[in-house]
């Protein structure tokens, strides 16, 4: 295919090209295409190989209970930029079987497992379709609309029991187990054997067995409680000597079914819950969610609000990256002293967040059509002091301490290499993708808010190793600094909210996907509205979660000690991985 045929800004009408196999999605408020399940693999293969849609960003399901349909929604991008090609596959609810895209896009791996786990959609051809976020003995598929949790009260909030005849009491008293648990019918915890777990160990053991020397591999569990895993996270690794030959992450220890909660909540009530996804960068999470709902509502925040939003998002990015340098030191074995240096810088930024939003970490600051409140007095000056003086200076100091440090260089250079093809295919995003030589940054590739007006460069490095990931973050923090300097210089006066603040927003029926370049990568919110006060579907495309798909590729062939480093360099937050 010659180069001039690729037009980035336009989405081709694939219903013409694949006549009979693909039709347009004509439901009101919807866009994209509907692909017949039996043609999915062909169509996607062609889209990838001939039309250049090589980046499968999001796969998720929607349960259309009233119509008895289950829909799988795909968001496909070009890694050279441009808007999404959205297409869907519809299957009957009780026979929800869809071909797996695993062999075309590895990024489908975990996302399909998630859709199987939470929605009960079976992906044929997926080699490892185990539950991922809930435990093996979990009863049912929780995101199905007819599934109810042990503390079930009502389908949607607000619950009627709270007012005007408010009842109150400890919630566990309503539950026969006095516990937040629910077992499948006939389940006996005493005799139960976790089969998937056994299978996982067996497959780890199998690798590297019958070699000439007849050496055995050793299976090691790293985590779930381990200081190096940045939270509750487990990796099952098979080792040949010191070398990793197999590695599978096991996640879900922190799972709370954020999406189910989100579908019970009203639109506004979800805002503080998004803070708890990636709790290091709650402002960015707010941003993504606000964008998605605003897209549905068809409103735009006023100028000043946009500036404030970008200011907060960039402060978050800066702080997140500096934080990750602290962790890098930590993972390299320099225990906690340098980490505290990073925390110090973060503290000063959290002071600002606290002053504007009322909370250091759980900011809950964005509203649909603006932000919750204007910058209090003195905050802008404080930000100015930071962005013009302290932040650049501290970055230089970190640069000086780390970049030429022999220990850092020896450990990081050449460690955990991810090639550009792998990174794209695995759906890696954020600094992980850009460190592998793919200059893909949503702020430039598919601009939102005021980023098209701001002057900054997309950082890219080419070796795809841990060192380049570190450099990418360092340079990106510098670019954030540059953006911040422009923002504090140009921020206009004016209102901070479009329309009146309302606790019950009207969201027209339809679907929307809002995505931002969060510090960790592409953070997307897929929302389906039926016009009611609560979203019908609320899905989070979590960058930490999908970036972990690449972990095995990074670790295989390396030393076991480097696993810690690789994991740290992906920069995950378990609150977002497990949701």
């Amino acid at each position, binding site marked *: 295919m010659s180069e001039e045929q690729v037009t980035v800004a336009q989405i081709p009408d694939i219903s013409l090209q694949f006549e009979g196999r693909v039709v347009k999605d004509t439901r009101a408020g919807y866009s994209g295409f509907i692909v017949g399940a039996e043609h999915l693999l062909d169509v996607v293969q062609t889209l990838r190989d001939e039309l250049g849609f090589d980046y499968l960003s999001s796969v998720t399901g929607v349960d259309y209970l009233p119509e008895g349909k289950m829909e799988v929604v795909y968001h496909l991008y070009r890694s050279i930029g441009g808007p999404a090609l959205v297409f869907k596959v519809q299957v009957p609810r009780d026979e929800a079987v869809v071909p797996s895209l695993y062999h075309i896009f590895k990024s489908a791996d975990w996302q399909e497992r998630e859709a199987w786990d939470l929605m009960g959609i079976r992906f044929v051809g997926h080699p490892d379709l185990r539950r991922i976020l809930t435990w093996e003995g979990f009863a049912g598929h929780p995101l199905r609309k007819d599934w109810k949790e042990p503390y079930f009260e009502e389908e949607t*909030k607000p619950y009627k029991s709270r007012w*005007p005849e*408010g009842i109150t009491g400890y919630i566990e008293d309503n539950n026969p187990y006095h516990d937040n648990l629910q077992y499948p019918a006939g389940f006996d915890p005493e005799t139960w054997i976790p089969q998937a777990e056994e299978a996982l160990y067996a497959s780890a053991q199998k690798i590297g067995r019958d070699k000439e020397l007849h050496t055995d591999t050793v299976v090691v569990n790293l985590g779930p409680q381990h200081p190096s895993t940045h939270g509750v996270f487990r990796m099952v690794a098979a080792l040949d000597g010191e070398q990793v030959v197999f590695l599978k992450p096991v996640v879900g220890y922190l799972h709370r079914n954020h999406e189910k909660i989100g579908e019970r909540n009203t639109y506004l009530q979800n805002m*503080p819950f998004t803070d708890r996804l990636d709790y290091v960068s709650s402002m960015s999470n707010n941003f993504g969610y606000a964008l998605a709902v605003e897209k549905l509502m068809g409103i735009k925040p006023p100028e000043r609000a946009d500036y404030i939003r970008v200011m907060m998002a960039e402060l978050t990015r800066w702080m997140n990256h500096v934080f990750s340098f602290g962790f890098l030191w930590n993972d390299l074995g320099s225990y906690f002293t340098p980490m505290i240096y990073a925390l110090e810088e973060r503290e*000063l930024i959290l*002071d600002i967040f*606290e002053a504007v939003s009322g*909370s250091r970490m759980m900011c809950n600051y964005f509203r649909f059509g603006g932000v919750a409140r204007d910058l209090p007095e003195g905050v802008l000056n404080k930000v100015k002091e*930071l962005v013009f003086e302290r932040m650049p200076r501290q970055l230089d100091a970190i640069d000086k301490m780390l970049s030429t*440090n022999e220990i850092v260089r020896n450990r990081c250079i050449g460690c955990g290499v991810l090639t550009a093809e792998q990174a794209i295919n695995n759906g890696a995003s954020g600094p992980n993708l850009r460190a592998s030589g793919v200059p893909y940054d949503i702020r430039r590739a598919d601009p939102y808010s005021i980023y098209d007006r701001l002057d900054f460069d997309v950082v890219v490095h080419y070796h795809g190793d841990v060192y380049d990931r570190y450099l990418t973050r360092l340079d990106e923090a510098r670019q954030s600094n540059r953006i911040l300097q422009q923002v504090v210089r140009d921020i206009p006066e004016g209102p901070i909210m479009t329309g009146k603040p309302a606790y019950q927003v009207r969201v027209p029926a339809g679907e929307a996907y809002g995505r931002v370049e969060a510090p960790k990568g592409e953070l997307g919110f897929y929302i389906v509205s039926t016009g009611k006060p609560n979203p019908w579907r609320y899905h989070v495309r979590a960058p930490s979660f999908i970036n972990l798909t690449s972990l095995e590729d990074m670790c295989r062939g390396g030393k076991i000690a480097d696993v810690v480093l690789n994991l740290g360099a992906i920069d995950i937050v378990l609150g977002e991985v497990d949701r």
Partner: protein
Amino acid sequence: MTGKGFLSMLLGVFKRFVMTYVEDFRKGKKRYYTAEGIESRRKADVQGIFTIQYPEEKLPVPEEFRFLPFLVYEEGPNGEKDLRCTSCGICAKVCPPQCISIVRTNDPVTGKPVPQPKEFYIDVDICMNCGLCAEYCPFDAIKMDHDYELASYTRQGNIYDIERLSKPVSYYAGIRPTNYSAEEHARQEKEALKAAAKKPAATEGAG
């Protein structure tokens, strides 16, 4: 492989270490346990370690800081407590984890609702400190508190009732002066407008 980079890192660490003592020396006794000292340790140009020695020292919280909600009451001349809350239920509806529950008062004679809560509970174990209740209460009746030291040995008693939640207006004005005066200002303006709107209507009616 000269080790220069490594040494420069050590130098950086050493510099920080020294700076802490230099700052201590420069600021003297004032650096710790004084309001001024705490303030100087959160400035953008702070150097060395700037830990706050909690609990002996506490960071002053900004006005917008939020922790748990409380109900605001006006103090009557004889010390009676007049809650601003009208039991309209908006806060209970907007609360994301649904931890507010309100019993409305009904007039014993007519059975009609009276704008006054009979009971008001917040399960503070469940409260996620989001501040939405305070943000959307149309009567400025529920506000976010600054008190964050609430550790307790048991969960019992963590469902706060109306007694425990009520705090006087003066307390509110004390912790959030800017918000308070802005609200008062808005209220007075509204009342003035109302009064102004009434007058011409009255004269018109007379004419």
